[in-house]
Structures are given as structure tokens and as C-alpha cells.
């Protein structure tokens, strides 16, 4: 069952969606969510540009995506209806706030007649609810006046949904209590509105059906709901614990990465130092400084920020200091589509620096994958003394899904001991490399006898002194290249989920994983044979990738860009892959990928 809450950005739809999600999670459904916001904080009321929505997919089996087309649409105003009706299932249900359908408001949304009356909604099940009127009544006794009264209408809508889907109401009531406890009037208004919505279902004829979505069958364990940003933030905290290092997170506010900064700034009791820098460059600089000083230095941003940080990333690469850069991608170029998702920073991550400057690139595949991938990225940074780029995107960042909490006592030990003694009888050589990893020692200020200077100028092999000599430069370029390439021996092989006799491989990275998985499942349900693989490591690629690619006739690469992985694979393996590209600020619909797979199987 896929439900979409849609309204004006001031209508509280994100909150209503998130509460419904939480109640469903506690109830034991598997779920996946997709919030979508307007780019402007307060776009004009009742306009298409101001529509904010939150889709949640709940089910009694494991689910992979928020769903292509909602079954139920909650439309708080005409603009929300206009913007979302096209996505609704042909036989879907619309719960509509009838009070909002005045001529002035439907005109503003772009209708030329009232869509509730002119046949626009023929074929759908329409449940008309005068939400403003009912909210006013429900809130009356609290004494709340003026504009505040209608603020509670999202809770009324939530109450209606809670009844329709038999959600337990206690978690939501408990949450309202915790959230609004400080303001008794608002608290009472929200509780009353929520109950009024719920009771409307119980007592009114129009809601003939309730829907039963039973708890899902999930692997036994403890679960919590995470968004990608939350799980990346927790992964950073956990990486600090696993590395036995204090975390230093420097960042400049940017959509859609700021929530990582918000979350980490709450956890000072872990010794986490957050530093809101004056700009993106300073954030990278401070993180690098902290790394030089012996902390786990991390900076988080989105594409425009990575562009600004690139000179500092080069310095981290040259000084061979560990540093983690999180890029929560959004639509580009330039300011682009700040609130919409895209995977178009992959080439920048791999190549976007001056000089010969390879560094490891990893990508988070989903909110529930983010914790582990973040720790893996930190592991590589520390072990190989290198900056690492970790890619997430807006879809992962804001989407939520249940995540099985891992055994935290079994976190990998990713600590790297600091150098404390000279590494040769003649003294300390800061660029004397480990023969296996090619990594250099990490000697931090405060360590007597190991005083040394690093910097952006080319280093002499071993001593790390400044050296402009051409042959030494070539040697150092080769060392840095080999160090990163060698990481391929230290990462997991790519796993393939294949049907016997499949000739088509669908290869994805990042947030397309869920849509690809769902599409493959659709193909299989229809009797088709297909293989599927997902890349967490994008530089270097897993050792077995070439072999895997070579064993299929056709390799389909769906990406929310114009074919960036497709291009990398072509360069690396001479692979004649087939790209499926989408750059509409929205994730793939599973059906889009399924159709392409079917076409390839048939051809």
C-alpha cells in the first residue's frame, strides 16, 4: 500500500508522513519513504511550486522502493491535487480537503473549474473531508485563536489515515505529547485534531473500508527507522569508536547534507566536535587540520561544496592524510535542483581534481546500507592515509526505511596506531611507505622526536622534503596511484544475484539499488531471467568486476545521470554497456527499469 501526503509546504505534510511511517514501523510493517519538498522555503501558498509531499510504502513483505504510483493520495489543497494526480493509480483513492477547493484556490493551482465537481476525479474513489471545518471544531475548546487553529489539520488527516490502516494511535499520541508538551494549547489542539480524524473514520459512512496491512516477515532482530543522513551521521560516530579516534566534523550548511551536521552536533557526549565553518573551503580545511592533529576528520556537503573543496582534497591527497568527504548529491550543475536527487557527481568524485590525483570513492546504496558503508569508507581513509569520497544522494538522505541494528560489539577494529618512534635508525621518515599498503606513517603533533613538515609541494620519496626533480615526481605519482589501485585487494568482490541462464546483467550503484531490485523482481515474477549486481566501491572497482561484466551478453546500467558509471566502465573494461539514464530529479520507477530489461531480454 502506497500512500502519499501532499499539501502546501506550510501544511505539515512531511510531519504527517513521518508520523505515519513511524507508527507503521512500530506496527511491524516493512516500509520505504520518499519525501519531496519545494526548493523555496515558503513558496506562495496554493501554487504548484509550493507543493510538498511525502510518500510511504508499507507492506507485509520486504519492500524496496517507495513505490511508483501511490494507491492513496491525501490532497490538502487544489495545487497538491494538480501536482500529484497524474501519479495516482488508475483506481486509487483520494482523501481530499474539500474546504480548500474555493474558486480562488483552484484557480491559483491552474484549474479552470472545480476539479471536485467537473469529472476530473471520475474513476477514483474520492473521500471528501472538510478538514478545515473539522479542525476548527476539534480545536475550539482549546481556546486557540487565529492562524494557529488550522495548523493542526495535518493531524486530522493523520487521524483519518490511522483509522483507515488500523495503525495503533498510542505511538502518535505519545509523540505529540513529547513534542508539544511545552505548549499545552498546541498539544491539546493536535491531540483533538488527531482524535477527531480517527473518530471520523469510526463514525462516518463515507469510510466504508479499512485496510489491513499485516506486519512484514523480517529477519529477527532489533530494527529502527533511518534516513540516509541519519545513518551516515551514526556511521561517522561509530567509525570514530571503531577507530578509537575522536570525530571532527566540519561542514557548511547545504541542502541536502545539513541534517548530518545537525545530528552530529547533538552528540558531544561522544566527544564529537562539530565545526560550522565560514564556507565549504574552510570546512574541508578544518577537517584536514583535525586529521593532521590525529582526529577522524570528516566534512560533509553536496556537489557545489565538493567543487569548492577540491583544492583541499588535493592537499589531503598530497600530504597523505586520512579524511572523509561526504557528498550528498543533488541535481546539478550549479545550484541546479537543490532539493531533488541525482547521481551526477560520480565523475567529479573520481576525476574532479587537478593533477594526477586518484582517491577512493564509495557510494551508499540505501538508508539501511549507509551505516556500514560509512564505516568502510573511514576504514579505507585511515588504513591508506588518503582522502575518501563517500557519495550519497538526496533520495537516500531523506528517505527512510527500517534498518536492522547490527551487533555493535562486533564493529570492525579500524584503528591505525600513530607512529611514536623514529622508523629508521637515522631518524623519522614521514614518507617511508608500508611495503604492502604503500601507506605512510601517521605521526601527530605532540609526539616528541617526530617533528616534520608536510605540504602541497611535491615530496621527496621517504624524507618528505620538498623536491622538484622530475624523476622523483614520476615515482611519487606512481606511488600514489598504486596505493589507491591496490585497495582493490582489500575490498569485497561484487556479488551477483543471477538466475541460471540469464544473459542480461543490471548493474547499479547508489540509490538506484532499490528500484533495480524491484524491477528484477518484477521480471522474475513474469518468468524472465536476469542478473543483478550493485557496486559499493566505485574507485577502485572490486577485483572480480571485469570477469563479472564479461560473463553477460548485455549489461544494463541505470543511473540518475547521463551515464557516468557507464563511461567509467567503458574506460576501464572497454565494456559496451547499455545505459538507462534519467535526470528528472526523481528516482527511477521500478517499471521503467523493468521495461528496459524486458526489451533487452527480448532483443
Amino acid at each position: 500500500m502506497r500512500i502519499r501526503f501532499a499539501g502546501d509546504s506550510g501544511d505539515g505534510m512531511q510531519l504527517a508522513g513521518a508520523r505515519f511511517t513511524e507508527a507503521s514501523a512500530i506496527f511491524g510493517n516493512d516500509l520505504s519513504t520518499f519525501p519531496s519538498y519545494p526548493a523555496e522555503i515558503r513558496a506562495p501558498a496554493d501554487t504548484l511550486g509550493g507543493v510538498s509531499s511525502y510518500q510511504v510504502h508499507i507492506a507485509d513483505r520486504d519492500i524496496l522502493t517507495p513505490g511508483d504510483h501511490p494507491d492513496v493520495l491525501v490532497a490538502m489543497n487544489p495545487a497538491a491535487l494538480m501536482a500529484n494526480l497524474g501519479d495516482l493509480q488508475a483506481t486509487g483513492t483520494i482523501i481530499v480537503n474539500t474546504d480548500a477547493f474555493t474558486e480562488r484556490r483552484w484557480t491559483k493551482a491552474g484549474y479552470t473549474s472545480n476539479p471536485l465537481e467537473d469529472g476530473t476525479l471520475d474513476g477514483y474513489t474520492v473521500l471528501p473531508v472538510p478538514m478545515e471545518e473539522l479542525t476548527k471544531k476539534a480545536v475550539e475548546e482549546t481556546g486557540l485563536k487565529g492562524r494557529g487553529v488550522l495548523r493542526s489539520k495535518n493531524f486530522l488527516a493523520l487521524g483519518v489515515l490511522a483509522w483507515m490502516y488500523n495503525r495503533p494511535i498510542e505511538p502518535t499520541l505519545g509523540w505529540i505529547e513529547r513534542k508539544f508538551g511545552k505548549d499545552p494549547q498546541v498539544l491539546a489542539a493536535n491531540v483533538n485534531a488527531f482524535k477527531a480524524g480517527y473518530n471520523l473514520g469510526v463514525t462516518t459512512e463515507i469510510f466504508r473500508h479499512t485496510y489491513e496491512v499485516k506486519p512484514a516477515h523480517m529477519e529477527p532482530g532489533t530494527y529502527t527507522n533511518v534516513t540516509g543522513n541519519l545513518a551516515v551521521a551514526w556511521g561517522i560516530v561509530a567509525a570514530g569508536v571503531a577507530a578509537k579516534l575522536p570525530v571532527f566534523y566540519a561542514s557548511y550548511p547545504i541542502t541536502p547534507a545539513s541534517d548530518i551536521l545537525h545530528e552530529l552536533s547533538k552528540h558531544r557526549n561522544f566527544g564529537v566536535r562539530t565545526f560550522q565553518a565560514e564556507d565549504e573551503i574552510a570546512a574541508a580545511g578544518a577537517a584536514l587540520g583535525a586529521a593532521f592533529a590525529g582526529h577522524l576528520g570528516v566534512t560533509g556537503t553536496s556537489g557545489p561544496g565538493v567543487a569548492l573543496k577540491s583544492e583541499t582534497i588535493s592537499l589531503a591527497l598530497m600530504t597523505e592524510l586520512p579524511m572523509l568527504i561526504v557528498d550528498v548529491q543533488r541535481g546539478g550543475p550549479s545550484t541546479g535542483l537543490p532539493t531533488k536527487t541525482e547521481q551526477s557527481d560520480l565523475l567529479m568524485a573520481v576525476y574532479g581534481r587537478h593533477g594526477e590525483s586518484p582517491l577512493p570513492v564509495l557510494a551508499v546504496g540505501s538508508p539501511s546500507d549507509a551505516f556500514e558503508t560509512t564505516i568502510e569508507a573511514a576504514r579505507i581513509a585511515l588504513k591508506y592515509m588518503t582522502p575518501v569520497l563517500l557519495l550519497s544522494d538526496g533520495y537516500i538522505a531523506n528517505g527512510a526505511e527500517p534498518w536492522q541494528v547490527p551487533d555493535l560489539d562486533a564493529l570492525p577494529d579500524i584503528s591505525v596506531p600513530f607512529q611514536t618512534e623514529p622508523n629508521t635508525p637515522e631518524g623519522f621518515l614521514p614518507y617511508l611507505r608500508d611495503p604492502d599498503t604503500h601507506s605512510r606513517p601517521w605521526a601527530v603533533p605532540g609526539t616528541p622526536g617526530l617533528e616534520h613538515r608536510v605540504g602541497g609541494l611535491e615530496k621527496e620519496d621517504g624524507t618528505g622534503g620538498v623536491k622538484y626533480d622530475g624523476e622523483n615526481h614520476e615515482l611519487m605519482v606512481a606511488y600514489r596511484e598504486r596505493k589507491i589501485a591496490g585497495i582493490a585487494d582489500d575490498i569485497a568482490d561484487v556479488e551477483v544475484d543471477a538466475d541460471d541462464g540469464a544473459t542480461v546483467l543490471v548493474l547499479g550503484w547508489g540509490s538506484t539499488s532499490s528500484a533495480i531490485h524491484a524491477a528484477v523482481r518484477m521480471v522474475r515474477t513474469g518468468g524472465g531471467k536476469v542478473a543483478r549486481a550493485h557496486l559499493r566501491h566505485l574507485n577502485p572497482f572490486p577485483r572480480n568486476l571485469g570477469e563479472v561484466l564479461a560473463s553477460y551478453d548485455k549489461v544494463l546500467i541505470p543511473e540518475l545521470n547521463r551515464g557516468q558509471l557507464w563511461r567509467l566502465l567503458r574506460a576501464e573494461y572497454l565494456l559496451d554497456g547499455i545505459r538507462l539514464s534519467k535526470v528528472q530529479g526523481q528516482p527511477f520507477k521500478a517499471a521503467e527499469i523493468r521495461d528496459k530489461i524486458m526489451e533487452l531480454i527480448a532483443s
Partner: protein
Amino acid sequence: MTTQTTTRQDWQSPQEVRWCPGCGDYTILASVQNYMAESGIPREHAVFISGIGCSSRFPYYMNTYGMHSIHGRAPAIASGIAVARPELSVWVVTGDGDALSIGGNHIIHAMRRNVNLKVLLFNNQIYGLTKGQYSPTSEKGKQTKSSPMGSIDLPFNPVSLALGAEASFVARTIDMDRDHTIAMLEAAYDHRGAAFVEIYQNCNVFNDKAFQALTGKQERTENRVHLEHGKPVTFGPDDEHGVMIHDGTAHIVDVAEVGIANIHVHDAGAESPAAAFALSRLSHGPYGPTPIGVFRSVERPVYEDDLDRQIAAATDAKGPGDLKQLVTSTGSWVVE
């Protein structure tokens, strides 16, 4: 912290020093190394961070931890070090182009945050490393390779800028005056918080004698206005000139005419930076009577101390971080 007596040699790195012969940077390097040897700072605790430019080669010559970073970014990198490790002694070595042009944003924010950094700004009023373009402190009308008809940029007054950026310590000194330089380094080190020290530095290749008004045998006694806390601001061979501040502006007067009682008494610890600002505007460049010394030195909470206090408070309130608690903090459920 172990206190050890060291010599200047202990602070010299094996790297061969490569500035142009006669460059003011040599003198400053010697002053800094001499001061460090006297200071009792353990060598392993000293960290020198620079950006790009002639002055920014400085860390290579100090036998300490150091980083020669990227153009303009030293204050940001140094902030990360100082905030991560408050026990270290972090020094930023920068120039007029590095700090005030490409790195302008970082320098002002490091000042306002009051991170415990010692910023040494070598001001030679020219771009030396790129061979002689006008800098953000070059005087208007200056003819250089990139301004053959004269620069049309109004220069910054670095001391005014630092005061405007809420710096808690601001001083100025001159490369050739080693004793004064060392006194300023000591005052900066003793001040806990961001310290900004402008050092007039002669670039004998591209901007020779830019500070002649303050360094020439004759001129120096005429033009150096020594700021000393608690003393009237007077100058001249016989202290015959003095400074009065009224309506927010500093004026040069004859002491004999107005009487010593009416001369401005310098208060580096004044809560308001207004008088220090007025003094900084006495000249907009080193061309006439120019104050040197400590303009301002006030106590203000230090960024990393406040942050450590928050860490302690959060730990007191919530206990030390517990990952299991963290990952279930937004609610959880168990599937049997």
C-alpha cells in the same frame, strides 16, 4: 607539558632556507626561532601552518610540526588543529596576499571565533612569489607589473580589519626590530585566544624600502609611535608629539601645546575597540607617524574551550557516548 630550555639551533630544520638574500623574512625567522628557544614551548607542541607565498615557506624552516598548505587557507586548517588539540601551540604564518586577499574570509572568521591561533602576517605590500603584482595592502597609485598606470585599489589597513573582525589581540611590529618583534611574539603567545600580529616586512626585490618611513635612521625616530599600555601615546625624538582622540578620530598634536594630561593614555585592555581603531587609522599605511605595539589585548572565551565545556556538559548530562543507545534513540522494535 615538559618545559625544556632550548637553543635557536634546536628550532632550525635541516631544510636550506631559500629566500632572496636580504629579504626581511630571514630576520623574522631568526626572531621567531630565538623566541621559541626562550619560550619554554616544547618543540613537539609547536605547529606552524602557512598558506602560499614567500612568507609561507616559513614552516619548512622550523624544526616543529608544520604544514605548508594552500593559498589563503591556513587559518581554516590551523583552526581544525587548534580545536581538535587545544594543548598545542598553533601558529599561522601568512602574507598580505595570502591572508587579506584570497584568504580574507578565513582570517576574519578565525578572529571572531577567537580560536587560540597566533597569526603572523608578514606584510610586504606586494606579491613577491608571483614576481611583483600589487597586493591588497599596496598603496593606491602603485605602479607594478599588473598596474602599469598605477593601482586603483584602495588598500586594507590590516590592523583596522583585525579589530573590525573582533580580534581579541592585535599588534604590529617591524621585521628589522628584533627586540620589538620578540616582545610582540611573547605577548601574542601569552594571550589565550586569537592573536593577530602584523609584521612589516621588507621585500628588497619587488618593493624595497616600502617601510622606509619607519626603518630609515632619520625617519624611524620621527615616525614610530610606540603603544604602551597605560602610558600616554607620545612620539618623536623628544616625545614632543602626542595623540589625542576626539569624536572617534586620532589626531597628532604637540604635547607642549595641549599638555601631557590631555594626551590619550593607551589602554590595550579597553572593552571597546574604538580607541584602538582610531589609533590604527592614524596612518593608512606606513608612510608617516605609525603606531606599533599592542593595539588591543582583551580576555574573551576561547572557541575550543567553550567547545570542550559543551563536551563535558553533554557527557555529564547524558553519560559517555553509547552506540547502542544512539542507534535506538529514535525508537526501535524487535522482530522475533
